[in-house]
């Protein structure tokens, strides 16, 4: 059952994704779609992903799964039997959208070409690592490898580290977001015309489309006088503009930038008697903007080292300077802004209720809401009835 108040109420989705697309299914489910996620009798392998709930070691409740598979209804399918395959077909016959990842559970058995022939209004989203064509179409991958081939890893890390993967599943959260966009834009077209379609979502391209400066440095390199070539090497937190960097303050680190108003930053440093040589007229010459930025970042580094990190952050924001206090996750968990907005939500995991992330957006008419559908087989009888089977497994009504 979908959330009747959700923006996607009434939209039926079958979720045959793995890590590459599961975040997209989550976005759609949390917006109110009825998303059914079939699993093999041995259980979804993603249920073993860590971290796990420490108080439930006996049934290995996965917190990773609780987050990424939120608001789903789960359904066991034995695809080694004719009955299981028929049930999968029955599920697909009732769906508006089928989300797939190449070679994920159920995808090869789903006969989606036939389903599209029978129901031209059906939407099928095909997430692959590299696409279905081309020399790398059959390459195997992971978040780390997709991030490397997609260009993200080369940007991240420092001179004394290897190229780095983002913490967690951030590359696959990019392809997941595109998965949701593909489904919803295709759905809009179906609403307008009655026409369904397939939409390919290659993960590598999703990542390569979200690299901010990388293409710009290649295409317009001559405009960036501070670089020697079309590649900006990984260099810790220093932004491509040279004007944002994490610095050490007393009690912690802080991301500091003199932008967007360098004059205001200079005024602040003057008030603090920490401007050193920044009033030298050479820094005011338009052609010396980069020189000014480089020098002001040096001055800020020295100055920040003498400031209390929290006081500096709040003072900067009071002056409309976009400094950012580098917070560890336990500090994020007690953030006053999130608390004020009552952002945290309750996740029901096993017998426990755990606080966790809330909505990434707030729709005034259709509130985002986590749906709690219980354990793996709690929804089985309902789903079997909905697809025209009796509630005793194996007997079609």
């Amino acid at each position, binding site marked *: 059952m979908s959330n009747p108040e959700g923006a996607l109420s*009434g939209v039926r989705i079958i979720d045959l994704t793995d890590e590459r697309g599961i975040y997209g299914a989550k976005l759609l489910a949390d917006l109110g779609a009825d998303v059914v996620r079939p699993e093999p009798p041995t259980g979804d392998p993603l249920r073993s992903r860590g*971290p796990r*709930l*420490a108080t439930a070691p006996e049934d290995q409740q996965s917190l990773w799964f609780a*987050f990424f598979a939120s608001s789903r209804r789960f359904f066991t399918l034995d695809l080694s039997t004719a009955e299981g395959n028929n049930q999968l077909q029955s599920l697909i016959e009732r769906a508006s959208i089928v989300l797939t990842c190449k070679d994920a559970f159920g995808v090869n058995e789903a006969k989606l070409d036939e389903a599209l022939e029978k129901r031209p209004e059906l939407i099928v989203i095909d997430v692959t690592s590299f*696409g279905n064509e*081309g*020399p*790398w*179409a059959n*390459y195997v991958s*992971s978040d780390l*490898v997709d991030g*490397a081939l997609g*260009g993200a*890893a*080369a*940007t991240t890390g420092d*001179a004394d580290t290897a190229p*780095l993967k*983002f913490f*967690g599943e*951030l590359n696959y959260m*990019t392809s997941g977001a*595109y998965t949701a966009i593909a489904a*919803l*834009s295709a759905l*809009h077209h179906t609403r307008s015309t009655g026409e369904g379609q397939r939409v*390919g*979502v*290659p993960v590598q*391209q999703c990542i*390569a*489309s979200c690299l*901010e400066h*990388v293409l*710009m440095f290649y295409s317009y390199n001559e405009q960036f006088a501070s670089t020697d*070539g079309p590649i900006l090497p990984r260099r810790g*937190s220093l*932004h491509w503009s040279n004007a*944002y960097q*994490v610095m050490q303050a007393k009690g*912690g680190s802080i991301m500091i*930038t003199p932008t967007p108003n360098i004059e205001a930053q200079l005024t602040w440093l003057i008030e603090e008697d920490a401007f050193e040589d920044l009033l030298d007229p050479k820094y005011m010459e338009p052609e010396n903007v980069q020189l000014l930025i480089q020098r002001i970042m040096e001055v800020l580094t020295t100055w920040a080292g003498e400031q209390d990190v929290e006081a500096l952050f709040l003072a900067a924001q009071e002056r409309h300077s*976009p400094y*950012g*206090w*580098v*917070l560890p*996750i336990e500090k994020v968990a007690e*953030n006053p802004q*999130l608390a004020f*907005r009552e952002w945290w939500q309750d996740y029901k995991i096993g017998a426990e209720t*755990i606080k*966790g992330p809330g909505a*990434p*957006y707030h729709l*005034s*008419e*259709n509130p985002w809401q986590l749906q709690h559908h219980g354990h793996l087989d709690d929804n089985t009888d309902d789903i079997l009835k909905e697809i025209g089977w009796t509630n005793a497994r194996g007997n079609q009504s």
Partner: protein
Amino acid sequence: MSRPLDGIRILDFTHVLAGPFATRILGDMGADVVKVNSIDRATGVNLATHPYFLQFNRNKRSLALDMAQEASRAISRKLCDEADIVINNFSVGVLKRWGIDFDTVAETNAGVIYAEMSGMGDTGPWSKFVTYAPTIHALSGLTHLTGVPGREDIGLGFSYNDHQAGLHAVVAILAALEARNRTGKGQRIDMSQFEVGVNFSGPSLLDWFANGNAARPTGNKLPYDHAAPHNCYKCADTIDDSIENERWIAIACMDENQWQAFKNVMGNPDWANSPQFNSAAERVNASDELDQAISAWTLDLEAAEVMEQCQRAGVPAGIVQNGVDLIEKDPQLAAYDFFQPMEGEHPEYGTMTGDRLPLYFSATPCDDYPRTRELGEDNAAVLTDWLQMSPEEYRVHDESGLLK
């Protein structure tokens, strides 16, 4: 051929990256995006000639409006009545000062979907805070978590959260569009880029609240699961010590079969059969020794060679590709024409190149990529199409200095 969002009109008051990236995607999918700028107020990356602006504003029409003038604000108010979607990523309150806040617009356009992408959301003690992506990365925990153990000064190498805020705004807008298809009613979307960023640490936040475990950076290791090797390794085609001339390969053995296959790729060396590498958990515990041994092997091979050998054996491996690799060398992206010339000659830059939308619609392909327009280049067309402004009316507005 039609595109999925044909017929949708978007009035775009966005700037820098998060908002323009959202409307670029919507434009790529066929929406008529009218980007409103004041020529006199465009500076830095919002200058129409800045590469940043050129990269993220294709597939939009440009309307220049001097919003300091009341008559311009009146035109923007009329445009809001014609829009399916109004979007901005200004700080809270700017559009209210222009008289085009949601409540005002909804009075005469009940179907409007009004998306606000502020840094912190429209309520709360931090709602007036000024943020860019590096600010959000720092405050949301992403900077602290992405790095190597013992350091919290690395973080993500580009404005990831701006892209993701754009993607999430598109998701919310399309969901609101589906709701409007059902109910006929528009609505307001309050999106906090900070909340988008915090959301990315979902499993770690649950781990903190449930178990009291505070996540810390793990380099290229998985923070919670056993997979090893799982790292980037330097290769023989490293040219010199400068970072841009290094060559790395990412290798990730996600299960036991892949580890066994990888051992075969390496020629089944004795060290790989040491008991300390028997299981994934043991390999993670001995990852320093494991990574050292693998590095010794990859340093004798070119990255492309390692990738090909690994992939032939079913082992996930990929070159750490930089911008030149992606654009000039990657045969997979080339097979998809992922980087392609934008349509039309830019007066200053000529033919521009861009990355295409990474979505492949079978019935409504999104293959049109007109170049970024100069500020005000579409003034006449937009005001004629959207407001049915007569040539005489247009001339009067133009001469009065509103359209700049």
